[in-house]
């Protein structure tokens, strides 16, 4: 039986950012084991095979409830960093205080100010491109200059400078030692030129540290505990079961598998697996009058905050608007480029009936049981149409078409090991340490008490740094 100082499950954002900070605080003699369920498929393999992993995510879990609701992630070394779109807004200060400010959802046990230095650190690691101004307080400039606006973006910015910004993104504006500059192919799920930050191109050195052992194709099966203390992780590799002992266990397997592994291990926290949710997005197309589009330098160039924060959030969901620079043309001679794709990403309020549980027919797999999105989100979507003229002021527009329905997934899995100050209604504390098993840390978006309209990856990465710094 191998013995380590720490065992970390998973090698995506949450685990890797935790590992990076954790290593800075460990002695040279420390031993850290990282268990990764999937293989290491490098960028060349991914391009050749046009996919990020040989593991089909849908084969690893079951779905129940709303059959239209899907969930998306990538399993393998680097996790979902291989398939993300690299959109990296911070959450707004009020996102952490939804109950206090708007009387809905619940407050996070950590606040924006506490997390701010770790946001900066995560942005530095990912070499984020972003604007000089921002809708959230910043103590440092972004590491990279902003991506170029399109002409419609510039008009929206001119009309509402306080609500419209260049999207902060981990799609490189300028090349780094390991990444090319983004050239706006708009196929970011699998970037042809390796311009977006991934664990593979941005944190290889962390895994090359001599204190770290990375075991690939090693599927964690359970957290071993004894007398309220985590003693290690049982895992399967090459058809054989093994146990890695450690004095610290870190679970970063994603929002589907974090609660599943804890449930499989006999944990019985009241909210474990509950509150499964993610953002819901609606697409729209604006037909412009006399303004050409598509002069931007990346796939998504603008962020609109007009409908994000404000008193409306006490009644319905806020949303973040994205403006898209992926060329698709209008079928009207002379006006091909007078078209703008928009996406409105709404927050959802978690419900305990939406949950991850163990499959009764195949206990080796989780079930994502999702009954429905909240009325809060649906009310936000309903309110959108009436707000569009205000949102798009500054743009000459023929008409706007809203696509019917909410998209099936935003590729985020949130809320299933919720953090909080009270052990009675949360699974982990403000430092992501399990309330009862104090040498077990759970990282990733599964700890989110509420899911803001902002994409969650930057925040979960900052939370991992924060957790490792406070061990």
């Amino acid at each position, binding site marked *: 039986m191998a013995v380590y100082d720490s065992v970390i499950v998973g090698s995506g954002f949450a685990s890797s950012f935790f590992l990076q900070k954790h290593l800075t605080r460990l002695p040279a003699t420390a031993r850290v084991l990282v268990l990764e369920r999937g293989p290491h498929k490098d960028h060349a393999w991914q391009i050749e095979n046009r996919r990020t992993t040989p593991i089909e995510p849908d084969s690893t879990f079951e779905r129940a409830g709303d059959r239209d609701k899907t969930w998306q992630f990538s399993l393998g070394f680097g996790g979902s960093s291989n398939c993300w779109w690299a959109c990296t807004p911070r959450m707004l200060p009020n996102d952490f205080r939804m109950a206090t400010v708007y009387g809905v959802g619940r407050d996070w046990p950590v606040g924006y100010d506490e997390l701010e230095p770790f946001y900066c650190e995560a942005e530095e690691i990912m070499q984020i491109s972003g604007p000089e101004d921002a809708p959230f307080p910043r103590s440092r400039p972004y590491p990279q200059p902003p991506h*170029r*606006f399109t002409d419609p973006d510039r008009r929206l910015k001119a009309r509402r400078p306080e609500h419209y910004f*260049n999207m902060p993104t981990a799609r490189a504006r300028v090349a780094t030692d390991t990444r090319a500059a983004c050239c706006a*192919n708009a196929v970011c799920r699998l970037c*042809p030129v390796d311009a977006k930050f991934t664990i593979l191109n941005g944190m290889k050195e962390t895994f090359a540290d001599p204190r770290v052992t990375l075991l690939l194709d090693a599927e964690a099966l359970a957290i071993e505990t004894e007398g309220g203390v985590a003693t290690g992780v049982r895992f399967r590799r090459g058809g054989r079961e093994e146990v890695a002992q450690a004095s610290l266990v870190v679970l970063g397997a994603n929002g589907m598998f974090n609660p599943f592994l804890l449930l499989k291990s006999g944990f019985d926290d009241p909210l474990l697996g509950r509150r499964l949710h993610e953002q819901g997005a609606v697409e729209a197309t604006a037909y412009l009058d006399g303004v050409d589009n598509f*002069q*931007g*330098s990346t796939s998504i160039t603008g962020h609109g905050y007009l409908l994000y924060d404000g008193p409306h959030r006490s009644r319905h969901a806020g949303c973040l608007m994205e403006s898209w620079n992926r060329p698709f*043309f209008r079928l009207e001679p002379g006006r*091909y480029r007078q078209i703008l794709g928009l996406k409105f990403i709404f927050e959802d309020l978690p419900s305990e009936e939406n949950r991850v549980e163990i499959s009764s027919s195949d206990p080796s797999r989780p079930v994502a049981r999702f009954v429905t999105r909240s009325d809060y989100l649906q009310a936000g979507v309903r309110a959108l149409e009436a707000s569009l003229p205000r949102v798009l002021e500054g743009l000459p527009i023929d008409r706007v078409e809203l696509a019917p329905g909410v998209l099936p997934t935003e590729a985020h899995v949130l809320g299933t090991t919720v953090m909080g100050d009270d052990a009675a209604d949360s699974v982990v504390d403000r430092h992501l340490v399990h309330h009862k098993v104090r040498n077990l840390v759970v990282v990733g978006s599964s700890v989110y008490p509420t899911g803001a309209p902002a994409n969650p990856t930057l925040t979960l990465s900052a939370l991992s740094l924060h957790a490792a710094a406070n061990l």
Partner: protein
Amino acid sequence: MRITRRQWLLGTAAVAVAGAGIPALAAGNWQEGVIARIVRTHVPDAQLSDADMTAFARAFLDNRGISDALLAARAVLGPVRTMLPQAVAGRLHKLDSVTINMFLLATDYFDPARGDGPVALIAYPDPYGGSGCANPLARFDFLPPAQA
């Protein structure tokens, strides 16, 4: 008997081809002809050599895997698509839309240097082939912060 949309499209294609009254569909490379007609319908001002048009159509068909049934349906029913059921009309519209999208990205249509001259095929826009950068409209100059 319930007829699926696919069966309907295939039936339409079969009737069209078997009818032999439509010379376009009887020609050797009729699929390329359908693509060329879509381009000429929606981009009427594009003067393109036959060789470039054929090369574009071939590359488009090779890359997109468009079915012969859909192409035949477009050839026969395109002129009357406003009278078709919405689902069928939608598929034909999508074919036109994708074709024009690829055509405009594959050529120098938007290149200001072209002026009023003929349009030339530059490269089929495949981000996973060639240089890896396939968006000719993107601009990468650095603007002052206020306009970035």
